[in-house]
């Protein structure tokens, strides 16, 4: 290994004495050597790599390779770092550094992590020296120039600029709409047809003189789904108090229990029927999944509830709950953001609020600025995504890749 290196370095010294070696025909091999060999710290990184670039040479072909030599000092010892086919590794492979211009195919680009080649000696400030050579099989023709660079850490990753702009502007949008909703609490939210189904179901329960049942999901008070469920529960309880039917509420968590009791009580109060409120109708029936299923199923069959509402985040128990309810002939409305359970609610319930409709319904009912504002901000985000997708695809199909490039993530 030492001998070829020695030979090579002598050869290099000989060649570098020759002022007209650039683009000259080298001995033995008829190769036009590339020009513009440069080394520089790779931008956008933590200081691990150095980038090398050089112009394409006319004599590149599939059987010609490039070799990069690396050394910690100007005069060697040189070490072969990389060897690769001469028609690979272009600047265009790294759009995060050079952009998307067409002429980038005219230059080669290689990113190299010099410290890897000197394990143990990890001097972060070290300057490294590079040399370039062309090779066909065993024959190696050095290009001659020695370039150097030091890898250093960068303070901003320009390739993530689009991400940063999106983050800052979306944050602005969210905060703006929340502030906006504080001033204008009647921000428009489209009619959620599932809420009409709720009224219909309650109406039927009243007609039949049988109770309605509200089933919470299994998550605690910390989850958005449960908070939305509580908002919807408030609305149902008020209607129930107006219609003068009985509402049973079941759940599995002590905090959700006390919040639900509070909400139902308040709704009865608002409807002017505080006397009709009975705390025993809001109960924690079981703490574990299957006992919960059994207890809720028991209530459905025993009390023959006429309307069942499943609201919140459900797991595998959803199927058994909704099936038992359907078997008793109740009208069922589900609202959940657990997408894996939605298919079962859709096929067993009369109406299902899917995913984000749950949040929208909750915002619509509670009129809380935080919910309304963020709903509106997310809508704006969706609208932007829709426009980008639509126009981006059309333009890309006609060969204009501007939008594609702007939204490209690295």
């Amino acid at each position: 290994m030492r001998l070829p290196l020695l030979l090579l370095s002598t050869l290099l010294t000989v060649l570098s004495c020759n002022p007209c070696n650039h683009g000259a025909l080298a001995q033995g091999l008829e190769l036009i050597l590339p020009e513009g060999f440069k080394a520089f710290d790779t931008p956008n990184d933590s200081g691990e790599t150095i980038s090398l670039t050089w112009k394409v040479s006319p004599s590149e072909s599939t059987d010609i390779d490039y070799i990069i030599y690396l050394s910690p000092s100007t005069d060697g010892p040189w070490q072969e770092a990389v060897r690769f086919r001469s028609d690979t590794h272009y600047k265009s492979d790294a759009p995060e550094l050079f952009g998307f211009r067409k002429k980038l195919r005219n230059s080669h680009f290689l990113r190299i992590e010099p410290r890897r080649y000197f394990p143990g000696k990890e001097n972060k400030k070290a300057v490294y020296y590079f040399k370039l050579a062309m090779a066909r099989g065993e024959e190696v023709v050095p290009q001659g120039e020695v370039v150097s660079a030091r890898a250093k850490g960068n303070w901003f990753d320009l390739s993530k600029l689009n991400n940063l702009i999106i983050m800052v502007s979306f944050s602005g949008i969210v905060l703006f709409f929340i502030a906006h909703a504080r001033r204008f609490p009647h921000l428009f939210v489209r009619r959620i047809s599932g809420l009409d189904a709720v009224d219909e179901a309650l109406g039927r329960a009243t007609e039949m003189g049988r109770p309605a049942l509200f089933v919470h999901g299994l998550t605690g008070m910390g989850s958005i789904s449960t908070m939305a469920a509580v908002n919807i529960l408030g609305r149902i309880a008020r209607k129930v108090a107006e219609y003068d039917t009985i509402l049973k509420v079941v759940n599995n968590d002590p905090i959700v229990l006390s919040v639900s009791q509070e909400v139902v009580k308040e709704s009865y109060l608002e409807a002017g029927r505080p006397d009709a409120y009975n705390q025993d109708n809001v109960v924690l029936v079981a703490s574990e999944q299957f006992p919960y299923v059994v207890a809720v199923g028991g209530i459905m069959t025993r009390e023959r509830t006429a309307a069942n509402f499943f609201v919140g985040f459900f797991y595998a128990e959803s199927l058994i709950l909704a099936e038992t309810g359907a078997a008793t002939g109740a009208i069922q409305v589900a609202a959940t953001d657990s997408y894996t359970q939605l298919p079962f609610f859709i096929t067993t319930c009369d109406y299902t609020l899917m995913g984000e409709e749950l949040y929208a319904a909750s915002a619509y009912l509670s009129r809380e600025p935080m919910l309304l504002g963020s709903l509106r901000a997310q809508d704006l985000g969706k609208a932007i995504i829709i426009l980008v997708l639509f126009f981006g695809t059309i333009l890309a199909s006609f060969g204009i890749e501007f939008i594609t490039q702007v939204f490209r993530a690295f």
Partner: protein
Amino acid sequence: MRKDRDFWILVGTLALFGAVNISFFLVGRLQVNWEDFGIVLAAGITLTMYSFLYKDNPAFKIAENMYVGVALGYTVIITWFNALKPDLYDPLLVPLFTWERTPEYLLFAPMVLGVFMLMRLSTRLAWLSRWPFAFVVGLGAGITIPNYIHTFVLKQIEPSLRPVFSGGETVYMSINTLLILLGVISVLIYFFFSTEHKGPIGVVSKIGIWFLMVSFGASFGYTVMGRMSLLIGRTMFLLKDWLGVVQ
């Protein structure tokens, strides 16, 4: 009368289960050791769980509650041996008292925050637990924003921002690319709450529902598949490891 019948069913099942196992031990299909005793216990628990299918019963409830307890106990112990011990006790607390090597003082901060978190269990100092929660939640929120924008927004719209037809694809592929684009846009419009779903928006959101329904159908099919696989696995355990009727 009914109570009586259930009681005899229980006794009968237990007797049968006992008899099968005793005969297995007698004929030597099962050895008297912890491993084979474990198989009997596991089979017993599996069957107890399935007894729920006949009817909700005390044995099932006991088994489920016990399972919840064991799972919790296992999590606590594993968290100690795998997380708290190697991450905190060994590098910080042990060296602090033995001085065999220098303690990693930087670990004081998470330890203090961790102890603060446990203050949630006290009534007077519960507010201290808000500090570590704020740390965890704030950190989570901070790493979520840019990484989600990158991974779930930019990287997800990238495949759709391709030319629909640039010559390389077949017509079939181009149609699919267009359908995917239509699906994504229409589903996004379905979950758009700032305008009434009327006119062209209404039509597109209707298309969105159809896409959603087909995708829920796919989830439905896969869920049936998954649940059946679980049942098959357990049945295999009973037939193979316990009864030994399948090889």
